[in-house]
């Protein structure tokens, strides 16, 4: 009887862990590849948020608003190279309409529209010394930031944004 109980606990554990692993791998495959080859070091494993609690771990008090806008999962990964930080945030919502809503939520007067990236995209030279690129594509809202203002930093952030966009197109054909 005791063995049966242990077996049940292990089986239930697998039921809980397996879908989580699947979610993780699906989101992680959107991330750009070959960052290490370009000298970028991931600070940690990608952080996958699967609910408001785990989202709050990363984006704190902003999490409820993202959930209201239809965000269901998100992946975060940060890279570092010579004290410059490149931060990637990919939010998966439940529809393309919601991805657009998240994108619109963070509109800013100081942003410039971009061509040829996602369904709609923009570039922001932020206060405090960083650049940010955002776009939505399919059911994803993607945000990248880099903590340096230079032509090289612009190229890096746009190259990464394109790589993510290509991965979304590859793995999430509508």
């Amino acid at each position, binding site marked *: 009887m005791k063995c049966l109980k242990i077996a049940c606990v292990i089986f239930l554990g697998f039921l809980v862990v397996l879908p*989580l692993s699947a979610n993780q791998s699906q989101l992680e495959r959107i991330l750009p590849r070959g960052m290490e080859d370009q000298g970028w070091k991931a*600070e*940690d*494993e990608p*952080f*996958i948020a699967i609910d408001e*609690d*785990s989202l*709050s*771990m990363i*984006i*704190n*008090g*902003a*999490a*409820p*608003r993202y959930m209201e806008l239809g965000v269901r999962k998100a992946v975060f990964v*940060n890279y570092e190279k010579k*004290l*410059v*930080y490149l931060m990637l945030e990919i939010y998966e919502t439940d529809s393309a309409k919601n991805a657009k809503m998240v994108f619109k*939520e*963070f509109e800013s007067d100081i942003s410039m529209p971009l061509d040829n990236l996602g369904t709609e995209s923009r570039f*922001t030279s*932020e*206060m*405090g*010394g*960083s650049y*940010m690129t955002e776009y939505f594509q399919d059911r994803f809202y993607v945000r990248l*930031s880099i*903590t340096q*203002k230079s032509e090289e930093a612009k190229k890096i952030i746009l190259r990464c944004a394109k790589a993510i966009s290509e991965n979304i197109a590859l793995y999430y054909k509508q």
Partner: protein
Amino acid sequence: MTSHKKTTRDKQNFTRRQFIKSTAAGAAAIYWIPSLALGADAPGNDMKSRVVSVRHARMINPNERINAGIARQSIDEALLLLTKKKNMKEAWLQIFPNLKEQDTIGLKVNCVNRKCPTHPEIAYGIADSMIDSLAMDPNNIIIWDRTSSELKKSGYTINESDKGIRCFGTVDRFSLGRWLINRKQDESDGIGYDRSRPIDVGNGKTSHLSKILTRMCTYLVNVPVLKDHGKAGITLSLKNHYGTIDNPMDCHPNHCDPFTAKINAASQIKDKTRLIICDAAYGIYKGGPLGSPQWKHNSILASTDPVALDYTGMQIINAKRKQNDLDLVTDMAVHVKSAQTLGLGTCNPGNIQVKESILI
């Protein structure tokens, strides 16, 4: 990334007159905010909670980094105004009247948002001011937050050695795996949380405070950032202690109330906190606490009353929201009133004396 530059330490105990001379144009305009103009040093004003705001148009450099020298001048000016003392030594001794040689002062910074953290130039500016004025051993000052990883990303230099100003987190970094299993942060690679002294945070919940606060610090200076918050309306000094506890995620329901106030009522926080210096160089009024800065406020706010400081900061955020046709955050920030109810300070504008100084 930003790296702090220490200001010169040869101005020990300099006087208010010398200080004013040392500012760029040698002039400081000081006035009362009209809505609270009760008369400078009028009888009875000492009973009010004092909040000072020191602004300098060049606090932020053209490269958008904080000007360390001006930050330091602004901190010193804020202390002189707050304490009404003539020199920095007297000012700091009013904040820490019983300071002993072996005492350790913690500076609780806020690095949850690396794009708009407590800037190292301001935290180290406070530390340097104490060291210069009180001849403190720099190693008796700890700049700390919840993780070393976040401190580092915000431009701080981690220092756990027995030389210089110490700087480290309660834990090294978050571990998602550990958190999913235990609903607790991974403490295996840091100082960790004080499990021997749980605190009641309301609604049947308990939290544990960072051992940096409970075991290492004699006194605390709270150094928050000027930001709005999607759930609590604002995140200033009271909310900054979500980075002090082990389970901030459990304390977000109901606009973070009563949790925020109850955390601040814990004796380890209430009794040790002697000063709040808010980094208001930049501000976030929409979509906080994350995201990049949204305006340059070029200021330092200081008070010994966390509730009065948060109320004053909320008025600044509300003014920006009003300018941008957004709802005010007052109704969301219920924790400010709860903190007043628990006797942590006042959010009654009639009991708050706001003094602003503009350095030129």
